[in-house]
């Protein structure tokens, strides 16, 4: 990843591991991920429920600290390790040097306080500003995030605003102390498409104007395509693919990424085209699958993949593009070229099959699903 290697990264996460001690056992939610973001750049983290994307972000912000959480690795903000920081130091940095925008603005805002007062509070928690100055700055921030009639809305309660307006208030609050890093966790998921487009445009503009490093967490590949510079694809607590955004979509190299791309209805697909769902569902993190964690759902699985763990490695022809897959680079290139032209996963698999006999059948077969062993979501 270009930003990862850039010396100027403001946020650098190294081999982050997060596990929760639960009644059901140890849940390894994040299992050794690394990424970096430079000022003025956006890193998109894509994954489904349980991929660890939100836990990773919360841990960066120090929001998962608890006696039942085990964290390892390093989270460097301007070179300072946040995982080693004292609670007091963390409180000083959080909301000031790094801020976060959450998905659900209705529960993230205090229902009984006017929005202006909440923005002022965010400011006064970190620096000594007078009431008048704080209010003037709050108004300025509401105008910065393009809230119409900000002078009136500053005295509104959260429930009096629409979802899109509330999300703007949250962004204004996150910007109150001019953070160097902004983490946005599904900031537009609850919003209508037209409002989503406005909020994403706003985030892009603010990132450029303020030179922030942004981490955008989302399940939506379209949102990533329009907003991020670099992308990390997470699956079951690990990074399976990492690439500059253009390359990820032009030449994806991991079967899970292919699966996501083929599962999504899109406006530019040929009329009447079928979707190709990924069979099964994301695995349990209490008992993750052995070997490659995607193997129970992977159409290209081979016997070896059930035991050997893939390593995230740079591609020979593009070191910014990293993939954790046990297929060879040539096999993956061939398979994607076929898929991109409309081949089915079965056809692509046949084309890359080693001569030594048929590969074991893909996911959806008798392979017991991870987790509670339910009959899976395999299409009939």
């Amino acid at each position, binding site marked *: 990843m270009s930003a990862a290697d850039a010396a100027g990264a403001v946020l650098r996460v190294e081999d982050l591991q997060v596990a929760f001690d639960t009644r059901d056992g140890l849940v390894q939610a994040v299992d050794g991920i690394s990424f970096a973001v430079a000022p003025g750049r956006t890193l998109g983290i894509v994954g489904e429920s349980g991929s660890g994307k939100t836990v990773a972000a919360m841990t960066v912000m120090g929001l998962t600290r608890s006696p039942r959480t085990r964290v390892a690795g390093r989270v460097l903000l301007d070179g300072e390790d946040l995982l080693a920081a004292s609670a007091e130091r963390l409180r000083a940095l959080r909301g000031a040097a790094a801020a976060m925008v959450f998905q659900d603005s209705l529960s993230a805002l205090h229902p009984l306080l006017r929005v202006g007062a909440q923005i002022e509070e965010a400011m006064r928690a970190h620096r000594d500003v007078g009431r008048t100055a704080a209010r003037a700055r709050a108004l300025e921030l509401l105008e910065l995030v393009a809230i119409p009639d900000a002078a009136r809305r500053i005295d509104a309660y959260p429930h009096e605003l629409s979802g899109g307006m509330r999300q703007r208030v949250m962004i204004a609050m996150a910007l109150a102390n001019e953070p160097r890093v902004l983490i946005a966790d599904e900031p537009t998921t609850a919003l209508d498409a037209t409002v989503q487009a406005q909020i994403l445009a706003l985030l892009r503009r603010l990132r450029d104007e303020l030179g922030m490093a942004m981490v955008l967490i989302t399940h939506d590949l379209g949102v990533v395509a329009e907003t991020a510079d670099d992308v990390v694809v997470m699956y079951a607590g690990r990074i399976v693919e990492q690439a500059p955004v253009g390359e990820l979509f*032009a030449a994806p190299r991991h079967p899970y990424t292919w*699966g996501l791309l083929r599962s999504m*209805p899109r406006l530019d697909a040929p009329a009447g085209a*079928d*979707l190709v769902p990924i069979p099964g569902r994301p695995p349990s993190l209490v008992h993750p699958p052995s070997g490659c964690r995607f193997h129970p759902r992977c159409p290209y699985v081979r016997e070896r993949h059930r035991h050997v763990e893939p390593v995230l490695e740079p591609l020979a022809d593009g070191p910014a593009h990293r993939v954790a897959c046990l297929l060879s680079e040539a096999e993956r290139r061939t398979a994607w070229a076929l898929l991109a032209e409309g081949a089915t996963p*079965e*056809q692509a698999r046949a084309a*890359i099959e080693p001569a030594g006999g048929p590969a074991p059948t893909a996911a959806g077969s008798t392979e017991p699903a991870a987790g509670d062993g339910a009959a899976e*979501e395999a299409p*009939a």
Partner: protein
Amino acid sequence: MTPPLAEVEQLVKRFPLTRGVLLRRRLGEVPAVDGVTLAVQEGESLGIVGETGSGKSTLARILLNLLEPTSGVVRYRGEDVTHARGARLAELRRERQMVFQDPAGSLNPRKTVGAAIADPFAIHGLLPERSERGRRVGELLEQVGLDAAQANRYPHELSGGMRQRVGIARAIALGPELLVADEPVSALDVSIQAQILTLLRELRRELGLTLVLIAHDLAVVRHMCDRVAVMHDGRLVEVAPVEELYRAPREAYTRELLAAVPRIPGPVPTGAAPAGAPPPAPDPAGGGAGGPQSSPPSSSSSST
């Protein structure tokens, strides 16, 4: 000419706007649906798209007599059913079913999946024989891609996608003619969405269902539907065959909605390869390519 399967004419639904909790004062009315006329033809798949507050869900509920309109007419097979009651309403419920967005919220947490699916039979006094009912429940579970053994499990033991399959099994239990699905996949993960959409498409084909799909996601509607109705502020903005609407939207609002959909760059890998014409492998240099398998595509076929 046969009448449409279902239609609404000059439909209006207003909700009272009140203030206060104990002394509810009526401040006025909000029109949720404001003069909509729309027909659903037998066998088609009609998408209704719109943003929050456009009235699309209210319209769907009125269409199924789950909500009474303020004014206007609801017809089913040409018959005015706006104020249907009693036995006639029960009959209509068998013929027209709904799939909801949140299967967790629409399934009773204290009932097993099997009991939830058997409910419709009990309510309508069908299949009184216990064993017969159990067998049918098993069939339905398999029809939606679950294992018959899942009947003994509770909703919380299932994933979101599996719960939505249960919701669908319940909806098709009585063999309805019309299925209305209100945002059936918007709460699910991307990879699971495709599974449920594919299931709905298969069931529609197998059972000859007429489908009304309510959704905010224009790509989902394009994938699933023959025709699309666009709603905005309780009114119908535009109705057109799906490819026409996406290629040449006539109304400014439709264009705005389409423009807001984030685009995914790169090749479009969806779509089955044309039968009998496997795409050539473009990379014969690939080391692992070209096993002498019986399946058609191989690296040596690049001559097409």
